[in-house]
């Protein structure tokens, strides 16, 4: 009895990084499931915003309310709070970024796909590079190249003796590590979430259907039921990561636009 409890899972291959290697659809190079989902999300998002903004009424119906709520959330809760005075220029970019990430993260728990686009890290790198270019270009245009560079590597009021320590740290943190953490945070959350779902579902399936022990079968049922709660958690994480990515992008733009006090 003891040995069957200790070594119950011989032959079970736990999901790992290789579970994310998907075949190309129809043999077309580079056209795999994340690509299909991203293209589909573009259709969904553009269709949604076009439909919402075409027939605007003074008294909104349900669809218009959802659209206005999302737009207000990004404009007031993210752009105005983080960027401040000149926030209106950046609202279209932030709304687009937020809706792209929201739809693509929700593919993680959506039937037929059940796979987050940004768990292939190239997508996260691309989005982070876009934010990096935007906040640097905006800062250079506002303060000039050397002015922006001095502001971003040297906070005001630092004594001269501390400069050799502060300047490398600030350079590393503001110019190099920001896009890396931005992309790794998004990628890591989506990757870990998908892995968690895979472990609960494939492990539960194995315990229920392929294990001999009755105890294991019962635990497998429990695991499959609990995977529903994990889906709920991942729905929250998906929405939250879309919010955080947009919020941090807006904050970086706001920081490179800020005047010294």
């Amino acid at each position, binding site marked *: 009895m003891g040995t069957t409890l*200790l070594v119950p899972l011989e032959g079970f291959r736990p999901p*790992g*990084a290789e579970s994310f290697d998907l075949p190309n659809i129809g043999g077309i190079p580079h056209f795999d499931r994340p690509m299909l989902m991203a293209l589909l999300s573009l259709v969904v998002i553009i269709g949604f915003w076009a439909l919402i903004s075409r027939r605007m009424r003074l008294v909104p119906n349900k669809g218009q309310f959802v659209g206005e709520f999302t737009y207000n959330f990004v404009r007031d*809760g993210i752009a105005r*709070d983080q960027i401040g005075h000149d926030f209106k220029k950046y609202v279209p970019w932030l709304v687009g970024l937020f809706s792209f990430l929201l739809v693509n993260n929700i593919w993680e728990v959506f039937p037929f796909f059940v796979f987050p686009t940004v768990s292939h890290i190239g997508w996260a790198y691309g989005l982070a590079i876009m934010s990096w270019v935007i906040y640097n270009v905006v800062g250079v245009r506002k303060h000039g190249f050397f002015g922006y560079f001095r502001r971003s590597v040297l906070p005001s009021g630092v004594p001269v003796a501390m400069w050799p320590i502060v300047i490398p740290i600030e350079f590393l943190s503001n110019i190099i590590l920001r896009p890396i*953490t931005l992309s*790794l*945070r998004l*990628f*890591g*959350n989506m*990757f*870990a979430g998908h892995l968690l779902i895979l472990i609960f579902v494939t492990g539960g399936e194995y315990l229920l259907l392929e294990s001999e022990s009755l105890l294991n079968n019962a635990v497998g049922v429990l695991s499959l039921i609990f995977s529903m709660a994990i889906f709920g958690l991942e729905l929250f994480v998906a929405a939250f990561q879309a*919010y*955080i990515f947009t*919020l*941090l992008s807006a*904050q970086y733009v706001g920081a490179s636009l800020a005047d010294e006090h």
Partner: protein
Amino acid sequence: MTPLELTGSVSSLGYGLAAIGPGIGVGIIFAAVIQGTARQPEARGAMMGTAWIGFALTEALAMIGLAMAFVFNVS
């Protein structure tokens, strides 16, 4: 005969160790938010905004640890 044999990479143990620090950090952040809300309930919205940013920055450490656990996953 060993009673329970473990095989594979130790990088998952390393990730467990790496997650301790961010775990404590996230706990401190939300403990501060709860305290602040108890003292001044109307300031909750402003505090939550800052707390989410702090949470995301702290959580990035755990996410880097997760990525490293897969990068160094040599058994």
